[in-house]
C-alpha cells in the first residue's frame, strides 16, 4: 500500500510540472501588453509547460504581490490588476511566487525561480491629465538585419535614461511572413529590453497577415498580442484586436487595420472609428495603421493596383473621418522610406489633385528654430490640420531609387530610421532619427 502511495505521489509530481523545481527556460519575453493606469498584461513563453506567476511590488526587494493565471502551459498571460497609476513596479515572472522578503531579506530576485530575472515597468498615469510622454514609433521593422539593430541602438542612445512610455509597431513587424519564428527573431530577440519595460502597441501589416486572419482573430499576430477589445484602455469597444484604441495621459491613440478588416464606409471598423472619435476628451489624437494615405516611396499611393487599393481606401474613406474627428498625427509605414507632410487637411485624391492653397493649413517646416511650429486651436476643431508621417524604414530603406516626390510632403527621405513623439501638455514634438544617429527631421505642433 505504502509503495503504491509513493508511486502515485511521484506520478502526480511528474504530471504537475508547476510543482517541480524550475528547470524551464524563458524563451520569449517577458513583454508588456494592454497597459492601463491600473492594470498590465505580462506575457512570456517557456520551453516547458508550467504555471504562470508574476510576483511584483513597489521595490525590487519588496515583491509583495502575486498574480497568476489558471492552468499550466508554455504561453503565459497574466493580468496584474488594482495597480496604482503612474507608479513603477518591479516584477519577476516564473512558475511559483517569489518567496516574501522576510525569508531572505533583500534578495528577492535570487529567491525566485531559476529562470526569472527582475524587470520593471511604470503604469500609465491617470487618464486625462497631461504628463510628459515619450513614444517610440517603428514602421516595418522586422527585417532581422543589421539595419534594424542599428535603428534600435540609435534610439536607445537617443533616449538614454529617459524611459519609453510606450512604443508603436506600424505593421510588417516580422518579415517575411509574420510567422511565430519570424516574430521570435524580428521582435522578441531584437527588442528584449524594451519589451520587458514598455508596453508595445502593434498594427497589422500585410506581411503579418500572411500568418493571421482578422475575421477569425486567429494566427500568429493575434496569438502573440493581447490588445483591448472592450475599451479597457480607454476609447470605445471595438470587439476585435484588429483595430482598437487606448489612452495615455492626455493623448488618445487609434489603431486601424488597413490590411484585413472591412474598409467600407459603413463597415464595423468605420462605425467604431466615428464613435471612438466622438467619445474622446483627450487633448491629442494620434492614429496609426500600416498602409499610407500618401507615398511615393517603395509604394505609390497614386496607383490603384498597388496594395490592392488599400492606400486609396485609407486616404479617401478613413482620412476624411479622422480629420473631421480632430486627428493631429497620422502615422503609417508599408513604404520603406520617411515622408512627412506639412500641417494639412482635405487632400483625399491622387497627388495630381493636391492644391497647396486648399490643402495646406500651415506651410513652413514646423520647427521652432525654423519658420515656425504648427499651431492648432485648443478648441477641438474638425479639419484644423494634421501631419501625415510615413515612417516605414525601421528595418530597411529602399535599395532602389524611389521618386519621393509626393507634393503633400514637406520632406521625403530614403533613409532607414525610426520616429519619436514627445508630448508635453499642449505641445507635441516629433523627431525622425536615421540609422546613423542623425536627427533628420523634427517638427512641433502646439495647441493654443
Amino acid at each position, binding site marked *: 500500500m505504502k509503495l503504491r502511495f509513493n508511486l502515485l505521489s511521484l506520478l502526480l509530481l511528474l504530471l504537475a510540472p508547476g510543482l517541480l523545481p524550475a528547470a524551464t527556460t524563458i524563451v520569449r519575453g517577458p513583454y508588456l501588453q494592454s497597459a492601463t493606469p491600473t492594470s498590465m498584461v505580462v506575457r512570456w513563453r517557456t520551453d516547458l509547460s508550467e504555471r504562470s506567476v508574476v510576483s511584483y511590488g513597489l521595490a525590487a526587494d519588496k515583491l509583495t504581490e502575486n498574480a497568476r493565471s489558471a492552468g499550466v502551459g508554455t504561453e503565459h498571460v497574466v493580468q496584474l490588476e488594482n495597480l496604482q497609476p503612474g507608479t513603477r513596479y518591479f516584477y519577476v515572472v516564473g512558475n511559483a511566487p517569489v518567496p516574501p522578503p522576510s525569508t531572505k531579506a533583500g534578495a528577492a530576485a535570487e529567491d525566485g525561480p531559476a529562470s526569472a530575472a527582475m524587470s520593471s515597468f511604470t503604469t500609465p498615469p491617470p487618464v486625462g491629465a497631461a504628463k510628459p510622454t515619450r513614444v517610440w514609433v517603428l514602421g516595418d521593422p522586422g527585417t532581422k538585419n543589421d539595419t534594424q539593430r542599428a535603428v534600435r541602438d540609435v534610439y536607445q542612445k537617443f533616449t538614454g535614461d529617459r524611459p519609453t512610455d510606450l512604443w508603436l509597431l506600424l505593421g510588417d513587424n516580422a518579415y*517575411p511572413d509574420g510567422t511565430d519564428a519570424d516574430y521570435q527573431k524580428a521582435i522578441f530577440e531584437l527588442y528584449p529590453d524594451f519589451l520587458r519595460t514598455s508596453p508595445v502597441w502593434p498594427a497589422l501589416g*500585410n*506581411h503579418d497577415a500572411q500568418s493571421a*486572419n*482578422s*475575421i*477569425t*482573430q*486567429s494566427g500568429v499576430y*493575434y496569438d502573440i498580442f493581447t490588445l483591448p*477589445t*472592450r*475599451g479597457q484602455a480607454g476609447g*470605445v*469597444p*471595438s*470587439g*476585435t*484586436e*484588429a483595430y482598437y484604441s487606448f489612452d495615455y495621459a492626455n493623448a488618445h491613440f487609434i489603431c486601424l487595420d488597413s490590411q484585413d*478588416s*472591412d474598409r467600407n464606409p459603413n*463597415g*464595423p471598423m468605420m*462605425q*467604431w472609428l*466615428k*464613435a471612438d472619435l*466622438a*467619445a*474622446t*476628451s483627450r487633448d491629442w489624437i494620434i492614429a496609426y495603421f500600416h498602409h499610407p494615405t500618401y507615398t511615393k516611396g*517603395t*509604394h505609390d499611393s497614386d*496607383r490603384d*493596383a*498597388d*496594395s*490592392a487599393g488599400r492606400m486609396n481606401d485609407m486616404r479617401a474613406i478613413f482620412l476624411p473621418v479622422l480629420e473631421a474627428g*480632430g486627428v493631429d498625427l497620422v502615422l503609417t509605414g508599408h513604404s520603406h522610406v520617411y515622408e512627412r507632410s506639412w500641417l494639412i487637411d482635405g487632400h483625399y485624391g491622387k497627388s495630381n489633385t493636391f492644391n497647396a492653397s486648399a490643402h495646406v493649413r500651415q506651410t513652413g517646416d514646423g520647427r521652432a528654430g525654423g519658420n515656425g511650429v504648427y499651431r492648432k486651436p*485648443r*478648441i*477641438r*476643431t*474638425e479639419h484644423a490640420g494634421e501631419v501625415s508621417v510615413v515612417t516605414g524604414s525601421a528595418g530597411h530603406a529602399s535599395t532602389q531609387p524611389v521618386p519621393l516626390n509626393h507634393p503633400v510632403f514637406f520632406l521625403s527621405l530614403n533613409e532607414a530610421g525610426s520616429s519619436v513623439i514627445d508630448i508635453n501638455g499642449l505641445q507635441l514634438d516629433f523627431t525622425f532619427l536615421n540609422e546613423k544617429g542623425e536627427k533628420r527631421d523634427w517638427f512641433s505642433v502646439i495647441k493654443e
Partner: protein
Amino acid sequence: MRFRSASFFFLLPVLALPAHPELDAALQRINARVAASPQAAALYLERGEIYLGAGDLLTAEANFQVAAELDPQLPRLDRARATLALSRRQPADAIRLLEGALRRNPADTEARILRARSQLASGHSAAAGEDFAAALALLEQPAPEIFLEYAACAANPIEAIRRLDAGCARLGAVPALLERALALEESAGLIDHAVSRLDRIIARVERPESWLKRRGDLLQRAGRPAEAGASYAAARTAIGRLPDWLQESPATTRLKHELVDSAPSLSLSP
C-alpha cells in the same frame, strides 16, 4: 511528369502582373521555393493564394489546378478554390468545395464562414445561419462582422436582435452591433427596448451628450414628446459638464443648436 497538363502553361505569366514591390517579392520567394521543390503541392496552393489575393483569378486557378493534380487531398485546397469560386460569384461551386473541406475538418472555421457566406449568396438564409452559429461556437474571438452577418440571416427582427445581443455579450458594446440593433428595434416598434439599450450606453460612455440627443430623437419619432424633452435637457446638461475646449468646439456647438431646435425651451448658453 504531371506538368504536361495544360494548366501548367497558365503558370507562366508569372511576371505579367503590374509591377508591385510587395507582391513581386512574395512571388519571387514562392517561385524560388517552387523551383526547388516542383512536386510540392502546398507551394502551388500558396502561390495560388498570392494570386488570388492580388485579384488574378485565372493564374490562381491554374496554380490550384496543379496543386490538385499533385495532391487532391491537400488540406486547405478546397477552401482556397471555394474562395476563388465565391470571388467569381459562383456560390454553388463554393458550397460543393466547402462540403469537402468541412468533411475533412469540421473545425475549419474559415471554411465554415465561407460556406455561410456562400449559402447566403445562394439565398439559403437558414443554412447560412447554421454555419455562422457553428463558426461562432468554435471561435474564441470572432470579429463583429460575423455577428452582423449572422443577424442578417435571421428569420425575423426579434431573432436578429437576439443574435446581435449575443454578439454584444461576447464582444462588448461594439458600435456596429448596437447601431444595427437600435435600427431593428425602432423599425419593429420596440421603442422601450431601444430606449433601454440607449440608457445602458449612456451610463457607460465618457461623453453621453450625442447619445442623449439620439434618445430624444427616438422618443420624439415615437410620439413621446415629454420624455424626448427630458432627454434633450439631459444632453444639454451633459454638454455643460464638458471642458470649455470641447464645449466650444464646432461639433458641440452644432449639437447645441440641434438641441435648441428640438426643444426650444433649452438655451444655447449654459
